[in-house]
Structure formats: C-alpha cells, structure tokens
C-alpha cells in the first residue's frame, strides 16, 4: 500500500483540515474530532431548510465538497468507509438548522440509516424538525424485502444538487423532501471496477481482481460487485452498465436526462469521456435527449479505477433546479 498519508487513523481529520483551509471562502470545519462536520462559511441561513448529508469518508468530493450555496448546509464525514456516529450528525443538524427544519439525505446503507435515525431522534429532542430521504439508486443490487435494499451511489450528488436548489429558493421542508424523493425515484446508477481500493487502516486491497478481470456492479465501499467478468472494451462495459441503468429506469423516447459519468477516483478523465461518449450514443439510440452532462470524480472509492453511469430523468422543474446556481468546492455554476 502506497498512499500520500501520515497516520492511517488521522486520514479523515487531516483531510478535513486541509479541505477547510483550502476552501475557507465556502466552508468551515467544526474542528472537534468528537463531532467532526463541515458546514457553510457564515452558518445556517435563517428561514431556509437545512440540508445535511454524510457517510463514510473515502468518497471525496462527496459529501463535504458539496457544501455551499445551492447545495448542502453541512456534511458529516465518518471514518473511511464507515458511517459517522449520531453525535456529529446531530451537531451538524443543529448547525444547519435555520429554523425551517433539516433534511437528512442518507445513502441506503444499514450503518448510515441507523446512525442518521438516531441523530434525527436526538434532534427532535431539541425541537429541530428532521425529515429523511434515503437514496437508493444502484441497480446492481436487486431490491427486495429480504435484503438491505439498493445502495445509494453517485445519484446522491443529483439529489443533493436539486434538493439544495429547492431549499435555496425557499421551499418548505416537506416540499424539499418531496423534490429529493422525486429525484431519487428518477435516478439510477451502476458501476464497474477495474481495480480494488485499499482502506488505509486495512492496508490491503478491498478485494482481489486478476489482471484480466473486472467487477461489474461494484459498490462505492470496495464491496465486491454483482459479477466478475473478463476484461472488455470500454464500449462493451458501457453498454452493459447503460443497459441495466436505462432498462431499470425505463428510459423512453423523448425523455430528457442528465447523464453523469462518475470516476471512482483512479480513472483518468480521458477514460471517463470515452465511457460518456458511448453512454450518450446509447441513450440517443433510445430516443432520449442528453440535456445535461457531468463527467468527473464526484462519488469515489479512494483510488479505485473504474466508473459509474448515472441517468436522471428530468422534468421541467427538476431541470430548472439543476440549472440553479451552485457554489461549492466541487460543483460551481451560475451567478
């Protein structure tokens, strides 16, 4: 394992330190190791619904990179690949509350769900109204009553962006939650790994892949995926991912979509554009219009090589909210 780190136990704290210093115009860190969270510079916006997300670290820029005007109010980084505990979530919820309640955006993992659940209970004790939207966009996992359900992966960024815009324009808590739910219902993702990643404290790769194997349906925590197949061309892999995503979402002719090609952390930008090119062509073959595009590292798995494809079906309102200004360390547009 070769990493640009110091003490493996200090990775998250040092990352947040550097991050907050580099983006001091946008964000501030709580600094407290017991209740570590990142929130907007300037504090909660009075009268605005607060948006809080969080989860295990190692997915940077998710979530802290999306704190700022038009998106999140606070983000809670857990240990690498480990959901944060209720205390910092609760502290972040307090910091994000402008009096209009707080929305928790939670990726669907048992740990995240349970810890955010407890934090929400604690917040209610302090008279902060909390609603929770659980994101579960990963079509690699079969949804079923008998499993933990689908995972939340790169679609989370679109939920955070669009719900953030709804909060910014003054929607109340129920409306922001409804928008977030609508995004979640219309977004699907699936990923592939060419290599595993190594959690600093584990010191070995999260799984072993042969030189001519890839892992389809990979999670963002170095969990093994749906199946292991022989290495294939970018076009073939893209077709497999896109077919699963568009099939599950039932993308139809005339649909307008956001296409997000997300790097897992160790993939060159060039490869992401090659995947994007094919995914776009396949969507257009289905008669869909790729109305907006994002290509880059948004929801990563440390240094894993691989990519995921996310498709969000737009309606007029979602498009307007997507286009609304956003000013965060990792996503910036508009005035």
């Amino acid at each position, binding site marked *: 394992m070769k990493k640009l780190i110091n003490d493996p136990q200090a990775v998250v704290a040092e990352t947040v330190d550097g991050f907050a210093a580099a983006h001091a115009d946008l964000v501030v860190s709580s600094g407290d190791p017991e209740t570590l969270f990142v929130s907007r510079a300037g504090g909660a916006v009075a009268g605005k619904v607060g948006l809080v997300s969080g989860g295990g670290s190692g997915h940077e820029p998710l979530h802290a990179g999306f704190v700022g005007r038009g998106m999140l109010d606070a983000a809670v980084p857990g240990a690498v690949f480990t959901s944060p*505990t209720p205390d910092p979530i609760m502290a972040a919820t307090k910091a994000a509350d402008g009096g209009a309640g707080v929305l928790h955006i939670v990726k669907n993992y048992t*740990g995240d769900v349970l810890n955010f659940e*407890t934090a929400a209970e604690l917040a209610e004790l302090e008279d902060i109204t909390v609603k929770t939207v659980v994101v579960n966009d990963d079509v690699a996992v079969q949804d079923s009553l*008998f499993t933990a359900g689908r995972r939340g992966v790169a679609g989370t960024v679109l939920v955070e962006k669009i719900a953030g815009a709804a909060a910014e324009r003054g929607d109340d808590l129920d409306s922001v939650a409804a928008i977030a739910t609508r995004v979640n219902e219309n977004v699907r993702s699936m990923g592939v790994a060419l290599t595993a990643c190594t959690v600093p404290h*584990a010191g070995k790769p*999260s799984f072993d892949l042969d030189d001519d194997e890839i892992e389809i349906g990979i*999670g963002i925590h*170095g*969990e093994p995926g749906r199946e292991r197949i022989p290495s294939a061309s970018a076009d073939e892999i893209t077709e497999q991912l896109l077919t699963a995503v568009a099939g599950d979402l039932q993308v139809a002719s005339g649909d307008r979509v956001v296409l997000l090609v997300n790097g897992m952390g160790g993939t060159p930008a060039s490869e992401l554009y090659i995947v994007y090119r094919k995914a776009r062509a396949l969507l257009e073959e289905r008669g869909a219009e790729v109305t907006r595009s994002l290509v880059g590292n948004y929801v990563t798995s440390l240094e894993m090589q691989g990519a995921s494809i996310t498709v969000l079906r737009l309606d007029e309102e979602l498009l307007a909210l997507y286009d609304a200004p956003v000013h965060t360390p990792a996503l910036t547009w508009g005035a």
Partner: protein
Amino acid sequence: MSDLLNVAWARAWVQASAAVVGKNRMALIDLDRAIGDGDHGENLDRGFTAVLAKLEAAETATIGDVFALVAKTLMSTVGGAAGPLYGTAYLRAAKAAPAETVDAAGVADILEAAVGGIVARGKAELEDATMVDAWSPAAEAAREVATSGGSARAALAAAATAARTGAAATEPLIARKGRASYLGARSQGHRDPGAESSALLLQAAVEAAEASHG
C-alpha cells in the same frame, strides 16, 4: 466463588472484550473484506479502545452501569452498522441488569434483551447471516441452562458455545441483511464478520467469569 456474576465481572468482560477485539482486528477486517467493506475489525477496535479508556475513569455501581457505558461509547465511536446495533444491544442489556449481581436467569435476561435490541434496530431474522445468528442461539442456550437450574457461569458458557456454532453456521447462508446482502449468492461460503465478533465477545464474557471471583 459465588454462583452470581457481579460488577467486577462486567468490568472484566469489557477488558477481555477490548483485548479479544484488538487481537482479532485483522481477522475481522479480512472477513469483512470478503463480503463487505473491510472495516469491521477497525470499527470495533476503535470502539472498545474508547470504552476501555472511559471505563477506567468511571464508577459503576451496577452491571447495568457498565453496559450503559459500553452502549453509549460504542454508539458514539464505532459508526457503521455495528455501532448502532451493538450500541442498542448493550443499552437493552443495561436496562435488563439494573443490579449488582446476576444469576443464570439474569444472564439469559441480558442476552435476550441484547437480541431484542439488535432485531429492533436491524430487523434481521435468524439465518439472514448477521450477528443475530450468534446472539439469538446464545440467548436461547442461556435460558435453557437457567431453566434447568444451571449456574450463571454455565449459562454464559452455553451461550458462548452456541454463539460460536451460530457464527460458523453463517458460512453456507445467503446474506439477506447488511452489506453482504448486495452479493446475493456470492455471499455464500463466507462467515459473517458481525456474527464472528459476537462469538468472540461472548467467549470473552466466559473468560472474564472464570477469572473473576464474584
């Protein structure tokens, strides 16, 4: 050596737990790497290290006081799925043991409360390949010993043995809860890390009981 288990035992259990988790940190990581995200050993090690530090500074009048401290500390330091699940288990166990000592029935009460907490939070059933598969047979075994008049130590020993068997029995199962469930049939052939850590913790309880002179 009295038949009752006391506060000293509960404290010794915590110490033994921290030791066994530290010793098995990498083994638990490896189990979790195979079907999850490879942090289970790290998470528990972080948690029990914190518990140990807190315990040294804490006065504990009852067994429940010890478990409550464990619960609160695990809840606020472990994170992941195991944090809230173990946290709730110890919290319920604390409520079930508001006394200075427990007998065999008390041991069964504690374990049943723990199982109840885990199931309340995680909604797993037996054979979903989770820590429930260790705790649930453990509670049953303890109750049996208690009902048939066995000692607290015997109840604990039976529980640990059942947990060990239950953990091993997760191997052929298809996981239906937690991260391993994403793998579907590919989760077969792997032991659930949480069931394994549960078995280790119950074994630590037995060792603490053997060492303590209640």
